[in-house]
């Protein structure tokens, strides 16, 4: 590449983001493997954004593969299905794939090894169905965004349809280092992905679909181009390989030039983003009647013997997957997801969920952990931030305890991508600062709402007490009036002194009036 071309290339590159060593190969090139059915599965009830699902099975109950075991509750929720046939042996808590190491509810399933499927009806021609019917099928299959956000897909598609979205963006960016599950899906099942894209376009009523694939996945681009060739409405668009290209706002901006306003959703600017794996899941749900009960997971990292992509039933423990792929050395850190945004796992006995794109067993050299130093205000974080924020200013304020100050610098626009903390020469834990502040602020917000509710309740109580007091005094006055009237009547019977009675009656009337 000549100097001029390189210069032009540099100019055309987005100005945000970082370029971490991608370490996707050789895992991306290894053929897909199938995980043998583990001894036990722990299928969590909350594998999506929104309300957790509610179990509809009992301990001891036998279930079939694909059978509904937990139903959605609330507007934003998703059902959960049995990943294989077997017996429910527990409904209770298991450690969540969450840095806190706290527990959440899951259904324990003991596979019977038969893997018998539940019956399911498949529409003959889904394109003849009304869009709402496709959305219903997707909702019933429990499909959530598989890129990591795990937002229920049916809710998103319905929203897209309501807001008249014309463009479906299919996210094949997979910008996180190490991960290659989306790459594998596109290489192995390009026709299925394209079919899923068409089904989603039908469900939304979108006119076109843009599939953004990072330029570092040439095989996937070729496969997808071939599969999408018959459909003019689907365009395959290679995008520069730069983290975080797979973040929806960045991908939308790169592909369409549109900028999603910070208080809006993508649908408000006429765009919906879905992951390629989600498209594949939609295809399987609508064409084959298979709910989302398994997914491709990248197992990678320096501590793994055989890195690669594995088809894993939802609910498999990470330890089972590690045993399958082989562990070379005790990993320094276990991460679910990519190295940039993934969550650290407290231990390996946590279940793999619908949104698990990868399990990384990293060794010390890969983490490159070092003690944080002082911020030298070099501004690398500012240049790397894809949201145009000033991470150094926000972190300084959070450190000083000034959370509103950090908010004024745009903390709510931070997407937590980790570019700033990756690039920081002082190795400051910037993402942790921001996550801490976001958590504190939402706790404060919850407290505020709670206090408002308390204020309302207190006011209501005061009102009630006042009302009760009034009623009491009114009742007392009435009784007194009745007594007086009775007395007066008696007195009247004793001596016919008319004016006195009249006077008493007037008094009573006045009393009743004032107290009512």
């Amino acid at each position: 590449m000549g100097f001029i071309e390189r210069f032009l290339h540099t100019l055309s590159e987005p100005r945000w983001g970082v370029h971490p060593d991608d370490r996707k190969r050789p895992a991306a090139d290894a053929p897909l493997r199938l995980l043998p059915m583990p001894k036990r599965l722990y299928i969590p009830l909350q594998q999506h954004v929104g309300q957790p699902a509610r179990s509809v099975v009992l301990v001891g109950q036998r279930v079939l593969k694909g059978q509904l075991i937990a139903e959605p509750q609330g507007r934003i929720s998703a059902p959960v299905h049995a990943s294989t046939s077997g017996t429910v042996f527990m409904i209770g808590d298991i450690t969540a794939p969450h840095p806190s190491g706290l527990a959440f509810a899951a259904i324990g399933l003991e596979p019977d090894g038969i893997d018998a499927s539940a019956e399911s009806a498949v529409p003959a021609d889904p394109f003849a169905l009304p869009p709402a019917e496709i959305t219903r099928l997707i909702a019933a299959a429990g499909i959530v965004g598989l890129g990591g956000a795990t937002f229920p897909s049916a809710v998103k598609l319905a929203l897209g349809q309501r807001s008249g979205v014309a463009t479906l963006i299919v996210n094949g960016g997979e910008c996180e280092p190490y991960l290659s599950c989306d790459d594998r899906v596109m290489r192995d099942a390009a026709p299925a992905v394209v079919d899923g894209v068409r089904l989603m376009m039908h469900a939304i009523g979108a006119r076109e679909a843009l599939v953004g694939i990072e330029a570092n996945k040439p095989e996937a681009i070729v496969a997808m181009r071939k599969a999408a060739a018959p459909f003019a409405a689907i365009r395959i668009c290679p995008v520069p390989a730069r983290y975080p290209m797979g973040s929806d706002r960045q991908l939308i901006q790169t592909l369409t030039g549109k900028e999603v306003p910070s208080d809006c959703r993508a649908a408000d600017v006429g765009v919906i983003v879905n992951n390629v794996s989600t498209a594949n899941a939609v295809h399987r749900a609508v064409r084959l009647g298979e709910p989302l009960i398994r997914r491709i997971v990248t197992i990678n990292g320096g501590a793994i013997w055989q890195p690669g992509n594995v088809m894993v039933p939802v609910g498999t423990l990470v330890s089972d997957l590690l045993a399958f792929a082989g562990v070379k050395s005790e990993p320094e850190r276990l991460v679910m997801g990519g190295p940039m945004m993934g969550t650290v796992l407290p231990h390996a006995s946590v279940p793999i969920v619908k949104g698990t794109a990868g399990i990384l067993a990293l060794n010390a050299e890969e983490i490159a952990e070092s003690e944080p130093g002082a911020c030298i205000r070099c501004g690398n974080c500012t240049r790397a931030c894809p949201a145009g924020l000033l991470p150094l200013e926000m972190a300084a304020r959070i450190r000083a305890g000034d959370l509103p100050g950090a908010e004024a610098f745009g903390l709510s626009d931070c997407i937590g991508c980790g570019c700033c903390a990756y690039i920081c020469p002082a190795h400051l834990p910037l993402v942790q600062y921001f996550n801490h502040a976001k958590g504190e602020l939402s706790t404060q917000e919850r407290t505020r709402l709670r206090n408002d509710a308390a204020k309302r309740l207190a006011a209501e109580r005061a009102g009630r007490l006042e009302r009760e007091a009034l009623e009491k005094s009114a009742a007392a006055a009435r009784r007194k009036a009745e007594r007086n009237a009775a007395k007066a009547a008696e007195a009247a019977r004793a001596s016919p002194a008319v004016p006195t009675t009249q006077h008493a009656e007037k008094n009573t009337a006045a009393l009743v009036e004032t107290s009512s």
Partner: protein
Amino acid sequence: MFAAVASLALLGAALGFGLGIAARRFAVESDSLVDALVAMMPGSNCGQCGQAGCAEAARLIAEGTAPVTSCPPGGKALASALAAKLGIPLDLSTVADQEPRIASIAEDICIGCCRCIKVCPTDAVIGAAKQIHAVIREACTGCGACIERCPTEAATLQPLPATVSHWVWPKPDVPAYPAPALAN
């Protein structure tokens, strides 16, 4: 001598007249500050600050008699909001956000005396005479008024259980100059 006295007196009178006009022109009706502070207070009149109620506490805070940190249920958020409103500096490290707690009533000890129901500022305790009482989680502010009233110690404050969705990342601890340890 006379000129000096007269001119100063005249000057004083003129300036005083001007100030009088200004005072009338720029009159501020009422002390809107106290009202603004009352609106910011939790409003449950729980009495943990030691004042008769939130309005009284707000008045004292506006006067500067009570510190902005005197409201335990308001915590850090309220303290910093009040400090910002009053334009005074605040060292947030001295304010400990109390762990969110709610009252709970042990069913086997409760004798159904109804005393807690009467004192609860938010009507969060339900029950009737000789019936076991219960606390509505959403309505309880954790003020502890019922704890003091309960004759059998059935009412206690319990921390809210930690959940995955409410968990907050701890603040990173990046060392700088430590405060010196006290000599001797």
